[in-house]
């Protein structure tokens, strides 16, 4: 192998090494840019436009019955607007990271309250929270039935079931 060929191969090797690095970075860039545009598109649909498409891959169990409430919406507090689809396993609310709805709120307990279905009806249960769970002015004691559209106060947040 002549000197020239070797030098060309040597530099060619370094070029190929950098081609790898740059194409890896290109894949990353697509990865970084991609979801953001996709989610903005998804999150801000035309006001009169068709209902937005849900995220694909929905394998979540369904709400226990049709016609009943299908989601839990935060209507007041720092997380206002957050929606959680209801599943047959219910929703755990609190500060602990394992909760379905995690509140970053010093007034809520780590496992504060639970909203769950039983026999076609939804119930709210206070899990021994420090500051209590309220429906209107009334503090929830034990397990209380919960109708759609009724606000439940947990710490600084209010959540309600919606159809």
């Amino acid at each position, binding site marked *: *192998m002549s000197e020239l060929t*070797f030098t060309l*191969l*040597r*530099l060619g*090797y*370094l070029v*190929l*090494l950098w*081609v*790898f*690095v740059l*194409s*890896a*970075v290109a*894949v*990353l860039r*697509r*990865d970084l840019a*991609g*979801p953001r545009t*996709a*989610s903005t598109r*998804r*999150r801000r*649909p035309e*006001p009169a*436009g068709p*209902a*937005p*498409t*849900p*995220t*694909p*891959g*929905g*394998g*979540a169990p*369904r*709400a226990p019955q*049709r016609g009943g409430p*299908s*989601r839990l*919406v935060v209507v007041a507090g*720092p*997380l206002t*607007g*957050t*929606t*959680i*689809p*209801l*599943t047959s396993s219910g929703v755990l609310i609190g*500060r602990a*990271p*394992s909760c379905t*709805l*995690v509140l*970053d709120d010093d007034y809520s307990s*780590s496992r504060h309250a639970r909203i769950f279905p039983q026999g076609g009806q939804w119930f709210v249960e206070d899990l021994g929270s420090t500051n209590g769970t309220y429906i209107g002015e009334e503090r929830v004691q034990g397990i209380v039935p919960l109708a759609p559209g009724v606000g439940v106060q947990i710490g600084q947040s209010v959540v309600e079931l919606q159809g």
Partner: protein
Amino acid sequence: MTALRPEEGAPTRIAEAILLVVALALGMGGMWMVGHSLEGGLPEGFWTYTIVLAALAFTAHIVLRLRAPYADQVILPAVVLLNSVSMATVLRQDIVPYPSLQGANAPRHIMWSAIGIVLACIVIVVIRDHRSLRRLTYTAMVVGIVLVILPLIPGLGREINGAKIWIYIGPFSLQPAEFAKIAFAVFFAGYLVANRDTLALAGKKFLGLQLPRLRDLGPILIVWAVSLAVLIGEKDLGTSLLFFGLFVGMLYLATDRVGWIAIGLVMFAAGAVVAWSIFSHVQLRVNIWLDALNPDLINGPSFQLVQGLFAMAYGGMFGAGWGEGYPQYVPFAFSDFIYAAIGEELGLTGLLAILLVYLVIIQRGLRHAIGVRDGFGKLLAGGLAFVMALQLFVVVGGITRVIPLTGLTLPFMAQGGSSLLANWIVIALMLRISDAARRPSALPTRGALADPVPAVVGGGAIEVGGGTPVQAETEAGAGRSGTPDDATQIVRGVDR
């Protein structure tokens, strides 16, 4: 409602396949040039090594396609690149007959690489959900501590080149600390996800730093003691720094309190100063580092370090070319000093490319820590990425004289079974978490705003749109996920 199987419309992983081909081509090219420059033909075993690496890399690719279709597409090719470039380097040192390079053993290196990749595939197949590791939190702690203490047991551990980090079982030698770092990452993730509230919220404020309560300091004191025991008993600064750094880094990830980093740095500095003033081997390490070119040291303790520096200087900007360097003058150019050997033959340009490949792997790990939804996964991915970054810093910093030299190995590059196996397991866990992070989910992200239009979230409403829009979106989203960036908001979104 049509039950959407998650695998339907999953990314085809084309990018990964293409990058894998380039990575393997670089390994082949390296071995080809090594052979032509040193022997005037293909080196012995060229086809065996190439076929084994390619077959296993594509097996891993197919395993990912089947079992973790949403996993990151860059991590696997990046790691295969590092492994195959190191294959070429070790082969290059194996085929020259210098006594100082007797330890370089290409067949052994390919064997451990192959076992590493197979192990990674097994981890991906067996661990279907990284959250199952959370059950092993305290088991992992015990395993980690036992692994760290093993080299101190007389008869099992053996002191090599001043550090006692090896154990010998029959013909096999093992560096248990490499595996201990995985166990500790699992333990810290499980422990911290359960206790971060106490660590972050209880305690006094002092000089703008939120200091934790004294009784919450228990675990950090234990880890500090273990890492000091490693420093003193095993005479290994690197491993000690690795464990302690991992813990402090993960504490910071979990609690977002800078106070922990301050406490950690002060404790490590205090421990290091005390060790320095008491132990002569620590003093020697520091002298080698500060005064490497001292004529009294250069032919003795600092020989290796200085030869490594000379090798990298000889490599210069573009390197001497494969097979044209003098690795025989650098002790352990195939394991501890492989970074210097690569610098000699590929130059600064090559080294920077290699470092960027590491950076990409680490960035992916941290990115998926942000993207994944559960706290345990976040901490585990963040911790594994951080420990790899720290290890890289300690190794490269030691070789380039930024910090005192330690006995750690460069992940995926240095010849040595424990390091390869342990780091392939780390990569398998990272891939598993990245799959969870990028998998599209019907659940909205916490903290994300709801749609202004009455939602079709969950429930039976999906059939309203029919299969088509869902399908279309899946295709558009191939290769990326619709969720991780929303998930970024989990961390802080609430405060704003």
